[in-house]
């Protein structure tokens, strides 16, 4: 009957070791494992498969030439003028969108972080663009820029910015501003919401103390608000930059990359190559190039972040 007595481990020993072991090796993974497993299966494994495509020729229109081709796709990329144009456009599109979204989003968050009448309803309304499906916002903005059915060209002409009410989406020099405007409209709430939430976690007594010491509003902003926001700013700006660089939906619906590739960014080029030319190998090579560039960007930003944020 005395079966359950023999234990394999000396009790004293485990009791001394196990909490430490538990704390440093096991416990974090209890919280982490669902995330890690899901991401690995649904994103990382397919990513590896996707990267392997870039070393193959998988052109559906040219089925005789399938197979491993080494770095051929990348060599073709190097001498592809459209790739370099798209790279330049990606830079312009990303920098302009992120800067405007962040600046305006921070402004909005600061405005909303105080009491005024109808605050709740105003907040709900200004955040609304984020809830609009991308496809729909792209169409709406395409309408707004069309002089036949939208008011914007007429306003711009009245302000003297345009000589006549033309569709800027058809003008290679100006076309990029169309998707950028839509993107800023769509993206302001993102920064406003995350920054507002961060603002709300700043203890109010800090401002009281600063005020008692006679700090000006500007000093409060640079000495209290910004440092507290810094971790959130770092992470949101970095992620948002990466997303926007990859974000082709607006461009694809509004201009299709045209006119004359004036709005073709790398990720829309991936899309056209994959689904118009059905050349999956080459499309993968473009995507890998974009991934490489974004990795470098993130590495630089994380280094900078380490200097300023103590996490």
């Amino acid at each position, binding site marked *: 009957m005395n079966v359950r007595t023999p234990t394999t481990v000396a009790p004293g020993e485990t009791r001394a070791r196990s909490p430490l072991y538990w704390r440093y090796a096991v*416990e974090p993974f209890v919280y982490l494992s669902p995330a890690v497993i899901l991401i690995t299966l649904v994103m990382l494994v*397919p990513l590896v498969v996707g990267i392997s495509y870039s070393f193959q020729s998988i052109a559906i229109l040219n089925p005789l030439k399938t197979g491993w081709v080494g770095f051929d796709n990348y060599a073709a990329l190097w001498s592809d003028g459209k790739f370099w144009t798209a790279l330049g456009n990606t830079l312009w599109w990303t920098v302009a969108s992120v800067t405007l979204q962040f600046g305006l989003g921070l402004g909005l968050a600061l405005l909303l972080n105080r009491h005024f009448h109808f605050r709740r309803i105003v907040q709900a309304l200004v955040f609304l663009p984020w809830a609009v499906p991308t496809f729909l916002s792209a169409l709406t903005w395409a309408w707004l820029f069309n002089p036949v059915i939208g008011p914007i060209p007429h306003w711009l002409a009245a302000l003297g910015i345009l000589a006549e009410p033309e569709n800027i989406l058809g003008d290679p020099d100006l076309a990029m501003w169309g998707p950028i405007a839509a993107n800023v409209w769509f993206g302001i709430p993102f920064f406003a919401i995350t920054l507002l939430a961060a603002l709300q976690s700043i203890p109010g007594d800090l401002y009281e103390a600063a005020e008692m010491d006679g700090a000006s509003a500007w000093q409060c902003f640079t000495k209290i608000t910004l440092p507290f926001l810094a971790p959130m700013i770092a992470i949101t700006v970095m992620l948002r930059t990466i997303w926007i660089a990859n974000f082709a939906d607006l461009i694809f619906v509004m201009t299709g990359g045209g006119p004359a590739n004036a709005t073709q960014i790398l990720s829309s080029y991936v899309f056209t190559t994959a689904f118009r030319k059905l050349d999956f190998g080459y499309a993968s090579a473009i995507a890998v190039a974009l991934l490489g560039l974004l990795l470098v960007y993130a590495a630089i930003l994380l280094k900078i972040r380490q200097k300023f944020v103590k996490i």
Partner: protein
Amino acid sequence: MTTRSSPLLSAARYLALALYLGFALFPLYWLLKIALTPDQLIYTEGTRMLPTLTTLENFRTVVFQTPFLSYFRNSLVVSLGTAAVTTLIAAGAGYAFSRFRFRGKKLIIGLMLVTQMFPLLMIIAPIYKMVAALGMLNSLTSLIIVYTAFNIPFATFLMQSFFDGIPRDLEEAAMMDGCTRFQALRKVVFPLTLPGLGATLGFVFTAAWSELLFALMLINSNETMTFPVGLLTFVSKFSVDWGQMMAAGVLALIPSCIFFIFIQRYLVQGLTSGAVKG
């Protein structure tokens, strides 16, 4: 923060808010205007601020003569499911990143960042093959799983930054008093992260609500089609029914709006509780 401010400054503030409101709402107004304009006037009155005639015909057609209600239900199931599951998983992961130092942490964070850095187009073919091999094409569950994975990295970083903002002393005190870490998390930390959870839920919900590409690839039966794919059915090869499409778009905004208004409470909570003290 109720600081004394000059009337000029607060006037400027209200003006700025009004500009933001105008910018945010005007495109939506235009959407609504097109949805309410009778078909024959869409082009002739294209740039008028107010249409001379309005009609609910487009809405009626969309609701009663197209399978839109079913698209809606599907989208709602997918978005709510994704938002709930993602937030739960991301809260765990964000908590681990915020509170523990462990081997492999940097590697995992790095890999999570990598998942954000390539066009999702790149993995669409491999994912399609996997889902097809599992026999899960045309199922809403597969969409929820895929969307959850896509949204976890950002949601995790977001939750981490919210946990970072909560002093460790609070849960350490609770653990001193005999709580396990999980109890401390549930009873002490969880109520404090409600605004963070609300924000995360909102982001994930809207992301899932408007995702088009994967819904298009993984679903092609009418019964499990989600709303954005359904919207595409209005762009047929021969004609685009703008009025109906915009009407459907307006209807599609309703759940997002309700959801946003719902999470407002949690976003605002932090502010109001701070203000009562100050």
